[in-house]
């Protein structure tokens, strides 16, 4: 199969972006956007669709099997993992790749997602006591520990922007995991942060629900954590 891979590129030192297309031929029906990028970069001399010599394409990857979140980018308009985007399944031969838009672009397909990690620090997301994992909470703790911090959910969220007070869905799995393993007295501080940085800003449109590459049941996590928040609020009021 012959594909045209159209990539939105940027030089490190410059601010402007530009499109450049590459021809990628493969007989592997399982080839993904990640395979296309690796194979293009493995060419001894990379040239674009017009035959002009081109700089190697900068992008991030690590696991190549949907487990690390490194390769998140916008593929044909949708934020997703390049290693999960099977070209043959896209039903077309021209495919566009762009860096995530909600984060500063470093170069080519690399976006600086540092804000994701900063936000988790701001929310002081860590255990305040030894975890207790009950049989009932095991599955929830597992599911919420699966988050890749890839940022796809933030990219699609109408309310999230980097540097804003609302931290978006990426903060929810971490919060849920910690709250599922701590006593209410110990997670009070986290709940306060959650109320401020997630609950207050979330429109609950659930645009993020189907985008998560790990298929984390974001609605379930939200419902669960919000319920804990309400319980805490009610018990505080009663006191």
């Amino acid at each position, binding site marked *: 199969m012959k594909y045209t891979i159209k990539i939105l590129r940027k030089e*490190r030192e410059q601010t402007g972006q530009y499109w450049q297309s590459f021809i990628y031929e493969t007989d*592997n029906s*399982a*080839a*993904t956007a*990640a*395979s296309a990028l*690796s*194979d293009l*970069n*493995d*060419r*001894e001399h990379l040239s674009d669709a017009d035959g002009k010599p081109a700089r190697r394409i900068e992008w*991030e*990857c*690590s*696991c*190549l*099997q*949907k*487990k*690390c*979140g*490194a390769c998140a980018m916008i593929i044909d308009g949708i934020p997703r993992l390049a*290693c*999960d985007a099977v070209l043959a399944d896209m039903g077309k031969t021209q495919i566009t790749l762009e860096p995530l838009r909600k984060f500063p672009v*470093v170069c080519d397909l*690399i976006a*600086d997602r*540092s804000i994701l*990690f900063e936000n*988790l*620090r701001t929310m*002081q*997301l*860590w*255990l305040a006591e*030894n*975890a*207790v*994992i009950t*049989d009932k909470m*095991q599955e929830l*703790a*597992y599911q919420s*520990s*699966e*988050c*890749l*911090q890839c940022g796809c959910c933030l990219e699609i969220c109408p309310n999230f922007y980097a540097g804003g007070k609302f931290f978006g869905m990426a903060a929810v799995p*971490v919060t849920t*995991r*910690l709250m599922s*393993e701590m006593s209410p007295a110990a997670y009070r501080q986290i709940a306060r942060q959650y109320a401020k940085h997630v609950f207050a800003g979330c429109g609950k449109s659930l645009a993020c629900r189907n985008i998560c590459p790990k298929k984390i049941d974001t609605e379930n996590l939200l419902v669960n954590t919000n319920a804990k928040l309400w319980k805490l609020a009610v018990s505080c009021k009663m006191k």
Partner: protein
Amino acid sequence: MKTVNIIGAGLSGLSAAITLARSGVRCNLISAQPSERSQSVLAEGGINAALDTMGENDTVQEHFNDTMKGGCFLESESAVRNLTDHAPDIVTVLFQLGVPFRSENGRILLRNFGGQKKKRTAFAKSSTGKMIMTALIDEVRKYEAAGLVCRYPHHELADITIAGGRLQQIIVRDTFRNEFLSFTGSTIVCTGGMNGFFEGMTTGTTQNTGNAAALLFHAGVEFANLEFIQYHPTTVGISNKRMLISEAARGEGGRLYIMRNDQKWYFMEEKYPELKNLMPRDVVSREMFFVSRMPECSGEVYLDMTGLSGEVWEHKLSDLRKEIIAYMHTDPAEEPVPVSPGIHFFMGGIRVSDRHETNINGLFAAGECACKYHGANRLGGNSMLGAVYGGKAAAAAAMEQPSECEIRETAFRESISSPRIRSILRETLLGGLGIVRNAEELQTAIDELTGLCSQEISELDRMRINLGLAALQSAYARKESRGSHYRSDYPDKADAFRKLTVVKYENGAIQLRFVAADSEETI
């Protein structure tokens, strides 16, 4: 304030960072990508500890015995003793940090894993590494906020300076800004296995390029046992990598077979009636190599998981099933899956003492980049354990020394490797370091790489080739078969080789010597 540098933020790097922070020692945690993207998140099957929660009277002594035996007695007893003695505490602490190991009423359940007769592997479905990493990342965040851990999450090692047997400084490249920083002070290397020497052929991450190892070797750091490379028997080729089918699949009842005279032949069960499909990985991979070349056998080796119960699929292997369906379009509960061995783990690496010191003062190493604990063959579930324990031990040793860290912006001209040379290096190494080796093929590979060195190539490529040559020479010099190193021209184990193959780059040449596995020789 006392500060230690850690290069690598996978499991061993995080373990070291937490150990330092808990003692009030600062660290700079430098890594090519954030911890969420490290290879450790890929670990599937579990982590070993003789917790004895399954009513099998398991003991730390048996964990010790199995590890020594699995590693073909190529590791010092004292090191393995440290590892296995600490294992129950380590897994208990991980549970307290919130790792959702499968448990019942607070009792951690254990599963069977290769090379061990008793259930000893704590697990969380088949995403144990991801679960452990999530918990440790959250724990490290606490120390980041307290100013004890300072992350440099998109920084790659670019250079290391050693003088008079002491580490002087490391230089790292900020890959986002393309700028260089130098760091002085004690440094723990936690850069993982040398996957990048076998691009596309390993189950691990593309991020562990092996460049760090090549730089360190070139600078005079001693490496050991580079010939011991673990081929995991059950992997499948997906785009640009080998995908692992965890040993847990066999631990839960998966069976290997090949068609022999048109009949399914469960060769492992017939040949090894005691451990059957759960023999150590080197044995299984080799058997697969041999049976698939027998004239009466045809087609590939299959892993048959169709007999597993619905309960096992749901509670223990649901994620593995999803993954196989997604990447292979086959439901393993319905159909056997064709599998073949792929490169999975590097037992060899930076030579370290029991305290994780290298031969260079001020430089320590832990995790998969170091040669420790696993001897000639690592048991499944022991490497995460080795990474956590090694990180702790290295941190403990590093903080005993005074270590002031100065960070400076610096100018540096970095060398890069070429895709063409990387690919020649890979093919040559695969030719020499396959599952079954012999002198002739090894010599051919050595000659090819020596020839490649005389071409005009980059400095980094030269360093990588040197480390590749050291691995080939180690395999050539080890005239016996032991664990993952199988020589068809020397098929037996030889007592004279119960020694580490130690290599060092000195005065422009690779020096090789054998050192007894439990030698007291100071490193």
